[in-house]
């Protein structure tokens, strides 16, 4: 028994020492830091997406703000401090950790979590303590309902319908230009978001005059996707559209290369915008289309991408990375705009002002929604350029894919 107690005491002692050392580094700075809390999926099914899109941006943002001396609050420059907890991609753990940040760590602000479900699960606690929740990785058609219920919640990355409309518009434009015909092969991952997108796409594509010549789904985590691609190939489509998750985005592309699926449009959804996608397939994915996209030509976006790489050592993805960074900029500008730590006032400030960010000017409508986002991108010379958007107006037109070479 004593042995066990000792061991436990040692573990806790080590923990305390760790805590003290982090405390010391932060007190070395002049003013008291502003505390930002974030509950991240450091482990579990969503850890991959979190590590690409959120974590490096938080690191980069904190670095940029502190390099400037911090945020100007109550007349002095205060550095920012990030407190991170892991939720193991588990909603119960997530809720507990958000609650802990709010009431134990008493953080001044919180950064939005990764994933639609986690944003919505955490929203009641953010609302209870007046934390502004500028959601990014949350795509839903329920924005008005949700923001009515949680008036402190903001959306920046668009709606499910917006995403499908982006794909439809891309296909329509290419058909009208004579690049493709009417035949579309559509597949989806049989899981929440995949089913939802396919459900919306079916009537939307039919209405736009497309013929869905192949319509199949595959279970989440299917290791062998060759039957899916073979089936699509036999249907001889002009365009291939997959409402896919990260693992199958990679799997489908790999099989399409093996089977030499000859289509003018090859669309895969989540993770097509990841640098790792281009890293794995290189020039073979030239002309591939997918969810997301950015306008890489604005000086501010170029500066963002260069510095992101320099500070974190990682390439920013071509979709939600910049938007997530922008959400941090919104928060930062709102805090400085209010000029003091007052969360309710910060929520109000976000509602009524517009913000200059790396994706351009962001402002929110009466439903706390920013109707400015890129929805479809295309790989062109190693860059994933937006070819469809809502409210951005700077997309280029998509070109036909010319084989897998």
């Amino acid at each position: 028994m004593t042995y066990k107690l000792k061991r436990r005491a040692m573990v806790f002692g080590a923990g305390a020492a760790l805590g003290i050392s982090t405390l010391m580094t932060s007190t070395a700075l002049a003013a008291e830091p502003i505390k930002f809390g974030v509950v991240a999926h450091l482990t579990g099914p969503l850890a991959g997406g979190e590590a690409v899109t959120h974590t490096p941006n938080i690191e980069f943002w904190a670095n940029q703000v502190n390099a400037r001396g911090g945020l100007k609050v109550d007349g002095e420059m205060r550095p920012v401090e990030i407190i991170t907890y892991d939720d193991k991609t588990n909603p119960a753990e997530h809720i507990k950790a958000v609650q802990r940040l709010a009431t134990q760590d008493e953080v001044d602000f919180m950064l939005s979590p990764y994933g639609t479900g986690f944003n919505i699960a955490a929203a009641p606690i953010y609302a209870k303590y007046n934390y502004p929740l500028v959601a990014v990785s949350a795509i839903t058609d329920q924005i008005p309902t949700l923001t009515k219920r949680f008036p402190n919640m903001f959306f920046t990355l668009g709606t499910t319908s917006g995403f499908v409309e982006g794909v439809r518009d891309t296909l329509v434009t290419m058909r009208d230009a004579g690049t493709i015909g009417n035949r579309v092969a559509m597949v989806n991952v049989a899981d929440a978001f995949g089913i939802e997108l396919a459900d919306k796409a079916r009537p939307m594509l039919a209405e736009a005059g497309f013929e869905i010549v192949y319509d199949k789904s595959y279970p989440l985590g299917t290791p062998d996707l060759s039957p899916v691609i073979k089936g699509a190939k036999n249907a001889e489509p002009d365009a291939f559209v997959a409402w896919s998750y990260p693992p199958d985005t990679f799997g489908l592309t790999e099989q399409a290369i093996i089977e030499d699926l000859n289509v003018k449009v090859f669309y895969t959804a989540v993770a097509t915008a990841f640098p790792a996608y281009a890293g794995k397939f290189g020039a073979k994915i030239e002309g591939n289309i997918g969810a997301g996209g950015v306008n890489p030509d604005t000086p501010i976006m170029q500066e963002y991408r260069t510095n992101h790489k320099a500070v974190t050592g990682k390439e920013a993805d071509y979709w939600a990375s910049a938007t997530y960074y922008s959400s941090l900029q919104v928060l930062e500008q709102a805090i400085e705009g209010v000029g003091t730590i007052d969360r309710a006032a910060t929520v109000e400030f976000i509602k009524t002002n517009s913000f200059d960010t790396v994706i351009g000017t962001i402002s929110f409508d009466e439903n706390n929604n920013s109707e400015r986002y890129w929805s479809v991108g295309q790989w062109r010379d190693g860059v994933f350029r937006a070819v469809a958007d809502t409210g951005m107006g700077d997309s280029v037109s998509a070109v036909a894919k010319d084989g897998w070479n």
Partner: protein
Amino acid sequence: MNRIVTYKLAPGVLLLAAAAVLPLVSDGYWLSIATTAMMYIALSTSWALFSGPTHLIALSTGAFFGIGGYLVGTGMSDYDQSFWTMAQIAPVVATALALLVGLATLRLSGVYFVIFTLGLAEMVRNLVSWVQNNFLGSRGLYVLTDFTEAHIYWMLLAVAAVVFLAGSWINQSRLGFALRIIGNDEEVARHVGINTAWSKVILFMTTGFFAALVGAIVAPRYSYIEPNVVFSPELSFMVVIMALLGGVHRLWGPLVGVIPFTLAWEAITVSFPNSTTLFLGLSFLLIVYLIPHGFTGLFETMLGRMRK
């Protein structure tokens, strides 16, 4: 006789009363820990009702819990049903499934059963995804209610109390006696005329019923239901570990396992946010090596030594 019943009930009633006033004392951090703990108390105790006496490690909690959460999600968001209707339907569906699964697998012995239950959550998840994909479609499963954390806590507390009542009734009944015999030696049990298969199936159904009920109640806490989140194999393992930590040969065993585990888990999460999984593994090892019969076993050994 009545006095004995009162003596047995009194501590339980006191604990229940103490637990019930918790939300009035703390409505923030401690309540959110207590809600999670209460969820595991209900799950682990009902799990131990079946797995305690039979020694069959069922890894099916995630499957039944998922059915509860998923049915509430799909009923409320796709069919405009009320939470209450769905919270009644879900456990009934899970019980029916437990009956089917039990009939198919409980004639098997030991390890086959364990392996089957491990796959069950995955199978059910794929099945519901398949049905949703091919027949129902989806608009995202939102469970938006006006429940606060305190409401959910009280509902879970009520379920936990019912689990304890059911457990103590079963322990004193012929069924409980039969299960203990089955657990000790199934051959003997069969020999003395116990219908071993049905006894196990009935208890398995009870476990399924409560797990689905807990899943249904927790759904509004999650607000948004994703099949791969509610049908989580991790949940099944957590329930087993907490029950084993407490000890499964007493009804109150899982209770004394869940509370220290939840608190220790919290301490680990706070101190080592980057390596919680590592510590989870270490604590599994420590439990198995140092306290194989759980806290209740430890208490009883110590009590026995003191008597000597």
